[in-house]
């Protein structure tokens, strides 16, 4: 811990590694890249939600001889994109299970000819009944997936919820719902593929997880690993949306490349991207909570359901994380969570920052305020009475071994926001005003890295090498998409090797060059990969010390000279390490019991919201975010992650609504799917408490997803504080506020809080 506090580069806000290229406009995103003889690809998609494909008719007004046409029949390997379950076809064959499902691919040298051609392919169907909601799916009148529409279930139990009985002074129930949310990365999905008999498939694209794409291409093309190469291009935002979907698009582009004999670029426009790619899982969470007379939690009983869409994709792991984040940062002796993910005939839902946690945390933290109101306890006090502390056992009976400082985070958030004084002020002012102000808070955590044994199974391999030109390269498959991977990992290497940050660079994110250090997801990069790089650097120094006599203190010149002596001896200077789990990580995947995550990031967020009772708009006026994420490697980028996550969370709560019409997204344009703009975001005040985590890269824990977890409940709690009315579903748009406020109180009473 002392060592960590004496760092030079870790903890400093150095310039973003690829920042200058981005600022000069010379960073190369996929759509900026041309290949010799390149064609363009487009997709013919299902216009119905469920049915049998009867025929595919190509209109004669188009000269199809100019086009390459690919259907499922052209797939050389398995017609399946398997993330976890083998259920999603690469191209629909005989049947479709959701609107916008890909059926036919077209390629042409002129991209401007593709739109008309796509419209000239007519697919004839025999429609089947389709379902679009969790309720329709769980009724099981229409079975659209497996034997029962159930994509996955989990059962978590601690103690015995049913044993509480008469000891409970209060039972509080509630139902909470969250809607779909679009990632809205500003760069749409895109890929370029090339194919040759000799070298196989090469793709360049906007993606998070190069080796996921390798796996998908190998299966679809039936190729060996060394015949598939995936290169990440500069990626313009991802947020989980480029975790799973790029596998599908890469296979499509590569199929067209194989059949046409040309490199093929496929870049979606915004409407196609919004209509056809994954989104955040909608959820319905029911809580039934028993408390004693002092407001101490006795039992938490949760029924959690998500809509998974038409195929399994990552719904099981999203449900897992939702389950493990559903009971909040509280100590409770009796817990039962029954979780299920249901299939519908909507575009499959997928990974999105938070990965089930925002849904579960919205329910729990909204419910805590309803408990507080029922019991007549201040929401702050109710939480304080129930917080987990160091040494406590959480819902999976994982002992909280690392220092846990929720009280300290809460105190800081109350102080920085001047919470009590502001609430008192608005309680005085609101009755005389059409604008009602209130404050709301959320207490929450986010587990860093893969769940349970996930990191052990991933078995990530990463490290560094040294080029003859005197540059250290970080060798990982972890990718940069705005969140700072390039900068953080080169900071870690520069720190560990005690050399200049300018002399460390990232190796190209190319599976032909870098080892598989796992996907760039789950808030794992700084903590898990950072630690691997830190260890690989220490191992390199040991090699240089033992074989070529590098001293324990050295100048940078001496370091690179030692590297050259080592190269003369061994041919190359490279150090790779595999993931090592922290000790005593024991996880029972069947019972959902044990160490669910190696580390947790903790936070208290407070929102101030003004509700205008004339226009029914809700405006987040101010926001305070206090968190403990271990060591902060780069303060400016860490604050940027938190601010960006909060803005996305504000959108989730108050702006972003996916409007469905017969199973199709009706508002698939930026004109009518609305995200917060520069004029909508409040001042966001970000504070870090730092407790270095000994098994994370220079003490880091995960940070990327945490800030999306807290805003929605904090904002809706603030609206309850302002208006006295409980809103339990998001997104909460002005029309919903209107309906709720007018139903709750006659207009003449609106002035009374």
């Amino acid at each position: 811990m002392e060592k960590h506090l004496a760092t030079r580069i870790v903890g400093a806000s150095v310039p973003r590694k690829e920042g200058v290229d981005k600022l000069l406009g010379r960073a190369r995103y996929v759509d900026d890249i041309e290949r010799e003889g390149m064609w363009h690809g487009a997709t013919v998609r299902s216009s119905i939600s469920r049915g049998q494909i009867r025929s595919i008719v190509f209109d004669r007004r188009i000269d199809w001889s100019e086009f390459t046409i690919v259907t499922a029949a052209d797939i050389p390997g398995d017609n399946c994109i398997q993330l976890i379950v083998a259920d999603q076809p690469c191209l629909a064959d005989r049947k479709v299970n959701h609107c916008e499902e890909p059926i036919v691919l077209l390629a042409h040298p002129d991209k401007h000819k593709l739109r008309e051609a796509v419209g000239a392919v007519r697919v004839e169907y025999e429609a089947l009944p389709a379902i679009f909601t969790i309720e329709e799916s769980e009724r099981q009148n229409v079975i659209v997936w497996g034997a029962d529409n159930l994509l996955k279930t989990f059962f978590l139990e601690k103690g015995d919820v049913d044993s509480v009985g008469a000891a409970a002074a209060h039972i509080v129930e509630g139902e909470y719902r969250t809607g779909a949310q679009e990632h809205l990365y500003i760069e749409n999905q895109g890929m370029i593929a090339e194919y040759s008999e000799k070298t196989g498939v090469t793709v360049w694209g906007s993606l998070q997880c190069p080796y996921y794409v390798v796996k998908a291409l190998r299966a679809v093309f039936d190729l060996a690993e060394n015949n598939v190469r995936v290169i990440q291009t500069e990626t313009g935002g991802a947020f989980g949306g480029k975790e799973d979907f790029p596998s599908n698009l890469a296979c499509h582009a590569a199929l067209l490349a194989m059949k046409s004999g040309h490199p093929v670029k496929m870049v979606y426009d915004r409407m196609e991207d919004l209509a056809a790619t994954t989104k955040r899982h909608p959820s319905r969470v029911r809580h039934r909570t028993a408390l004693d007379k002092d407001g101490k939690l006795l039992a938490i009983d949760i029924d959690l359901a998500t809509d998974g869409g038409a195929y399994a994709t990552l719904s099981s792991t999203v449900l897992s994380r939702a389950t493990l984040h559903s009971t909040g940062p509280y100590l409770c002796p009796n817990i039962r969570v029954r979780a299920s993910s249901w299939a519908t005939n909507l575009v499959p839902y997928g990974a999105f920052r938070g990965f089930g946690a925002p849904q579960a945390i919205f329910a729990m933290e909204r419910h805590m305020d309803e408990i507080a109101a029922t019991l007549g306890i201040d929401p702050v006090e109710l939480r304080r009475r129930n917080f987990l502390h160091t040494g406590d056992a959480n819902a999976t009976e994982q002992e909280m071994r690392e220092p846990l400082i929720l009280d300290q985070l809460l105190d800081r958030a109350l102080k920085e926001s001047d919470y009590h004084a502001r609430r008192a002020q608005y309680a005085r002012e609101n009755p005389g005003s059409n604008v009602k102000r209130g404050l709301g808070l959320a207490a929450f955590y986010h587990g860093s890295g893969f769940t349970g044994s996930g990191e052990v199974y991933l078995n990530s391999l990463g490290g560094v090498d040294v080029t003859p030109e005197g540059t250290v390269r970080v060798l990982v498959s972890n990718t940069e998409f705005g969140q700072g991977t390039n900068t953080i990992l080169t900071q870690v290497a520069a720190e560990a090797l005690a050399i200049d940050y300018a002399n460390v660079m990232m190796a190209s994110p190319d599976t032909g060059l870098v080892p598989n250090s796992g996907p760039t997801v789950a808030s794992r990069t700084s903590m898990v990969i950072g630690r691997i790089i830190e260890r690989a650097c220490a191992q390199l120094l040991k090699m240089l010390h033992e074989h070529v006599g590098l001293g324990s203190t050295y100048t940078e010149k001496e370091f690179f000279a030692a590297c050259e002596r080592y190269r003369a001896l061994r041919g190359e200077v490279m150090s790779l390490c595999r993931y090592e789990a922290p000790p005593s990580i024991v996880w029972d995947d069947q019972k959902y019991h044990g160490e669910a995550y190696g580390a947790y990031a903790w936070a208290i967020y407070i929102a101030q919201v003004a509700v205008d009772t004339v226009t029914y708009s809700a405006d987040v006026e101010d926001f305070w975010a206090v968190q403990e994420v271990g060591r902060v490697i780069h303060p400016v980028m860490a604050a940027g992650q938190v601010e960006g996550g909060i803005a996305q969370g504000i959108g989730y709560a108050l702006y972003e609504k996916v409007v469905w019409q017969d199973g199709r997204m009706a508002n698939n344009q930026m004109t009518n799917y609305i995200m917060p703009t520069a004029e909508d975001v409040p001042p966001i005040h970000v504070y870090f408490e730092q407790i270095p985590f000994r098994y994370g890269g220079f003490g880091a824990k995960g940070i990327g997803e945490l800030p999306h977890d807290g805003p929605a409940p904090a904002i809706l709690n603030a609206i309850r504080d302002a208006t006295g009315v409980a809103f339990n579903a998001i997104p909460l748009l002005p029309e919903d506020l209107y309906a709720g406020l007018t139903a709750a109180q006659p207009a003449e009473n609106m002035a009374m809080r």
Partner: protein
Amino acid sequence: MSGHTTLDRCWPTIRFSVNGQHNQLNISPMKRLLDVLREDLGLTGTKEGCGEGECGSCSVRMNGELVNSCLVPVLQADGAEIQTVEGLALNGALHPLQKAFLEQGGAQCGICTPGMLMASAQLLETNPHPSMAEIREALAGNLCRCTGFMRIFESVGAAIAPEGTAHAADSTKRETPHAR
């Protein structure tokens, strides 16, 4: 300096300058300025985010105005002077806005950055000492999904010339993050 010249008998000749370079193109008059910049002139710094004028990723400056180049048929650019992100840096030195975005964390994934820089440059040329409210208004047509805009406001504030009135960043109650 001269830029690109293409000749095609079918199309009218359209002349305009980009970043000080003159171009003469025989080109479909309805082709989007965005596509002409990217495809015909190879200036791929200008990005397409939505194709309907909502996101501002394709913002360029045309005759001293900020425009969404996805909504401008190239015919409208006939005779115009256009500046793109590639024209901001001078003699290899970062423009003060580029330097500020680099130092303040104003760019994350970078896809909105060219448009954001052009909108910021437009603001500072027309209003050298904007208030925070004016910065927010000037950037309201440029969507960023990564930053939550805070670091972008900081960046624009940091790029304001120091002489004269108060620094924009001082005019808010916002604090910089506290690392303990």
